[in-house]
């Protein structure tokens, strides 16, 4: 079977990407809103806007990286297991791993934790993600619910993508001039 047949269609990719965007952008924006009062104390609004451009541009690349990871899984696994239920399984796989990372990052902050502890947590994260992903494709009700949620989440792409493009332009221009 060719690689092309294992690649999800764009219509399948958008909902999964939307889930990734909600989690990656949401995490950064949540913390940025906590930080905002401090920035307002000493930075002009324009400068805060530029900082947000850096944050959004970073989120854009990391969301693409996460999407790339899900697509790789789709390429590796048999078409029936993943490609055919890409929206539900891809969304749950991405969400379960990203939420696990959130929980880990919320509790640990030392660089050594990330080097020593995360690898020992990784099998557990993968196990949970694997089970949930399996269930998301296997139980019809879950599959439908995830698909409906993910497809509705696509609306966020209409905000995040133009914003990311604008942020990238700002970052590039600021670093060229």
């Amino acid at each position, binding site marked *: 079977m060719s690689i092309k047949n294992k690649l999800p269609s764009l219509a399948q990719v958008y909902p999964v990407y939307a889930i990734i965007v909600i*989690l*990656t952008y949401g*995490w*950064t924006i949540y*913390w*940025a809103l906590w*930080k905002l009062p*401090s*920035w*307002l*104390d*000493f*930075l002009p609004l324009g*400068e805060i806007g*530029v*900082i947000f451009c*850096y*944050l959004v541009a*970073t*989120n854009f*690349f*990391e969301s693409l*990286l*996460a999407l790339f990871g899900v697509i790789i899984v789709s390429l590796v696994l048999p078409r029936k297991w993943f490609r055919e239920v890409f929206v539900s399984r891809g969304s749950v796989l991405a969400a379960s791993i*990203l939420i696990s*990372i*959130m929980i*880990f*990052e*919320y*509790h*640990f*902050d*030392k*660089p*050594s*934790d*990330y*080097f*020593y502890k*995360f690898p020992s947590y990784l099998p557990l994260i993968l196990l949970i993600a694997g089970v949930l992903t399996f269930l998301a494709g296997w139980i019809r009700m879950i599959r439908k619910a995830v698909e409906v949620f993910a497809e509705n989440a696509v609306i966020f792409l209409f905000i995040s993508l133009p914003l990311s493009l604008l942020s990238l332009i700002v*970052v590039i221009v*600021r*670093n*060229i*001039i």
Partner: protein
Amino acid sequence: MTRLSRRDFLKLAAMAPAALAFSQTIMPSPLGTDSPNIIVLVFDAMSADNLSLYGYPRKTSPNFERLAQRSTVYHSHYSAGSFTTSGTASLLTGLYPWTHRAISINGQVAPAFAQKNIFSLFGKSYDRAGFGQNFLAELLLSEFRSGLDVHLSPAAFSVRQQVAGTFFENDTPASYYAFDDFLFRSSSSPRSLIFGLIERALFGFRLKSISTVGYSDNIPHTDYKIYYRLEDVFRGLMSQVNQFRRPFLAYFHLWSPHAPYIPSKQFEQLYKKDKWAPPKKPNHPLGDQVSFGIVQYQRQQYDAYVTNVDWEFGHFLDALETSGELDRTYLVVTSDHGEMFERGVFGHDNPLMYDPILHSPLLISAPEQNSRSDIYSQTNSVDVLPTLLKIAGRDVSAWCAGRLLPGFGGVEDDSRSTFSMDAKPGSSFGRLSVASVAMRKNGYKLIYYKGYTGTDWFELYNLHDDPEELTNLFNKDVSMSNAMKDELLTTFNQNSGPL
């Protein structure tokens, strides 16, 4: 060849004592080919109160004392700010914090004053270099970068570093704020979900390979993922000094001895068994209420670290002497603020205005100076900029809050009022509604705490009779209290309005 007549010889002999006396006064070189080189070496969070140079019982600064033998030593020098941003901004602009408004952590100088910095004022005839190993200092250097010919990365001379902002040279400090102070800030969980994980794991891996030879656990490091050895930093700075075009102005702002206090094995046990203890002082309501034992332990670590820093500074001094650079250069050694180990507080992240947090070392060694001169009258960090401008033959502008330092054209004047201020909690742009201000005059110090609790209050100390600031005279010496209070409030109210 003309021969010296007996009459000429006698004339010259008569002039000799005057010439000798004249040579003791440090005169600035005129602008031109003989413009002097200037190195400003700032040790972050180095309190003069903890230096044996200024009478501290522990022998923490033998090399500072060595430099003092050929320097003007300022005994009552105080920083205008109580932490890096405000203290450094005052040093580099000659303005008080209420004017420059770099008063928040990570703050910068208000745009109206951003061009009134030492580098821009020195102009292009000087090779102007800046190195801020502390990010807060680096943010100011980034703001002043149009006046810098050489802008060294805060991570220069490090063993390991992971500073993302350095990849965006054209857009600092925004990139520093976004990456190093937020997305990848090491003191909190990563704010970038995936890259944060990767970045931190990578740094954990890279830290594993750092050699800790000579240290018990870890080598010195900053809050921003810069790990370094002091000897590398001083060696790197010396190498830079050799590369600068003449004349040069070099501003080197070192992280050490800022916390975490990490002395090498050679120094870490130095004061663990000595019997010396500072006087016990009551906890301050705005302090951290840390136990005396912990404060003492931190002081011991700090003192050992200061001694370690002094030792490495000694090698730098040796290198400057051996190369002959010290005979061609003004070497200014100071700090941006002090560090406090009393009243239930250690460090400087608090609003208190006691001397340990404000008393900064200041030594200025002039080219070919070979004797020590001691200045006991009070001076302030805002005085450094006008003095260096004068040394370089520049005009001292009227907007500058500082005066020429005694020994360099200024006069000793204790009747002058000088100020130190902290206003971290509020907005840099608005009215300063939460602030602590210290005013010094005639050997007295009045401290004003505004907006921290329901009631504002004052403390007055006679620094001559009570250098440890133990007896609050505010309600006892009413006439002095009222006079100083009126002056402080008038000055503060004139300057605390919104920008």
